[in-house]
């Protein structure tokens, strides 16, 4: 059946087959390696994603990786497959949210934001889930490690990029995505953006100080 198939169609079938065969996500580079030279991988992925949208199995992107997953709306119908899973502690969930929204963020900054010391195993647990990883260091005294979320995190929560995090734009606009100590955040001439993430901080209250 492939004899008369146009080359673009054939490349699309190949991308579909590669992604379908694999349980793990494939990057655009993984795909390009096995496609004819000069294939427009992003265009093929976009086309495939569009074609699959109404189907029961959809093409999802998570960071650098692409994979097929079942459509989320089928969840209740597929419920028999549901596994009872351990609930994450509130501390773990909050810590994950802090890392996701403030990344890259140090342990100290996480504690500052949550107003409490991090329990012993919290970061470990999130790391073991494959949801966070250390990347880079903050160039402040002690050069603390900074934490970021992984593609595995995006994939688990069905997010294409961190820009798709719920409410991320609103929170940023409200100036709440600033990991510096509150008193420094509020001092416009505090001047030390040394440690702070490169988020543009808008004044909390235009009238206030």
């Amino acid at each position, binding site marked *: 059946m492939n004899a008369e198939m146009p080359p673009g169609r054939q490349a699309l079938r190949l991308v579909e087959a590669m992604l379908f065969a694999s*349980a793990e996500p494939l990057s655009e580079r993984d795909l390009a390696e096995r496609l004819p030279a000069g294939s427009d991988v992003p265009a093929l992925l976009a086309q495939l994603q569009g074609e699959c949208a109404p189907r029961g199995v959809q093409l999802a992107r998570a960071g650098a990786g692409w994979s097929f997953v079942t459509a989320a709306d089928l969840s209740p119908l597929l419920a028999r497959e549901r596994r009872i899973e351990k609930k994450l502690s509130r501390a773990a*969930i909050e810590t994950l949210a802090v890392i996701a929204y403030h990344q890259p963020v140090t342990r100290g900054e996480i504690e500052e934001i949550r107003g409490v010391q991090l329990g012993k195993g919290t970061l470990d647990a999130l790391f073991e889930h494959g949801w966070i990883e250390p990347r880079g260091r903050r160039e402040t005294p002690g050069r603390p490690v900074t934490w970021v979320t992984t593609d595995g995190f995006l994939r688990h929560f069905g997010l294409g990029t961190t820009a798709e995090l719920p409410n991320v734009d609103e929170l940023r606009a409200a100036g709440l995505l600033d990991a510096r100590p*509150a008193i420094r955040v509020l001092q416009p001439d505090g001047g030390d953006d040394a440690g702070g993430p490169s988020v543009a901080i808008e004044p909390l209250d235009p009238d206030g100080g």
Partner: protein
Amino acid sequence: MSAATAVALAAETSPAEDLDDGPFPSDAFVVDLDGWEGPLDLLLALARAQKVDLRRISIVALADQYLAYVAAARRASLELAAEYLVMAAWLAELKSRLLLPEPPAADEPSSDEMAAALAFQLRRMDAMREAGKRLLARPQLGRDFWQRGRPEAIPERLEVVVSADLNGLLQAYGRHLRRRRGEAPLALVEPVALDSVEAALARIRNSLGQAPGWESLARYLPEGALAGLREGSLTARSALAATFGAVLELARQGVLVLRQNQPFGPIYLKPGNQEGERR
């Protein structure tokens, strides 16, 4: 999730989880401090109980509530962690400074700024708490959607690339040529003049009987061999072996007799009885 993770998570799970959604208990004097993850957590719950936008929270009212809560806890003789007391002291001071404004010191934040910072911290905490809940409300892999259940093995085409370069080829030929010309056999045994039994026989015959009585075998070693033996020299060892072999042969022939007083002891020799006949 591994067992270790589950344990770690369970250890951090606080009873405050139930408080996520419900409003702060109206009877603030039902004190349960176990549930709070620190004073800020308690403050946030109190602030939310004010049921106003956190941006319009009254820090003075919040300070009053916190102080009342802490006072109630002390009346109930509950152990209060030091951090709660530190926060109480800080809030009491902040409240008095807010009520009785004073000119701020040049290098210190004003009481208004401190109040705003606290309000911001509560809002940021609240936002993250909310974000965590929204995140968990999303469909999750393995719970609401699934990946391929039966991944297919991608066939692999093995391409064996033999690494060889011209230099290697030439070196190989060079090796071969060397061998062929005998210039450098793989294992080179250089000609060495080792002592032979024949040489030793002649040496012993020549000097046997020049001294009367028993003589040490060492005397019949070639010149320099004794020193060489101490160094483990191969030629010296071959001389010793050859000499010993020759001595045995001469003893067999009756030319000399041997004596050794103890195992591994020195070997002595002297001319045998038939020596004269042989001569």
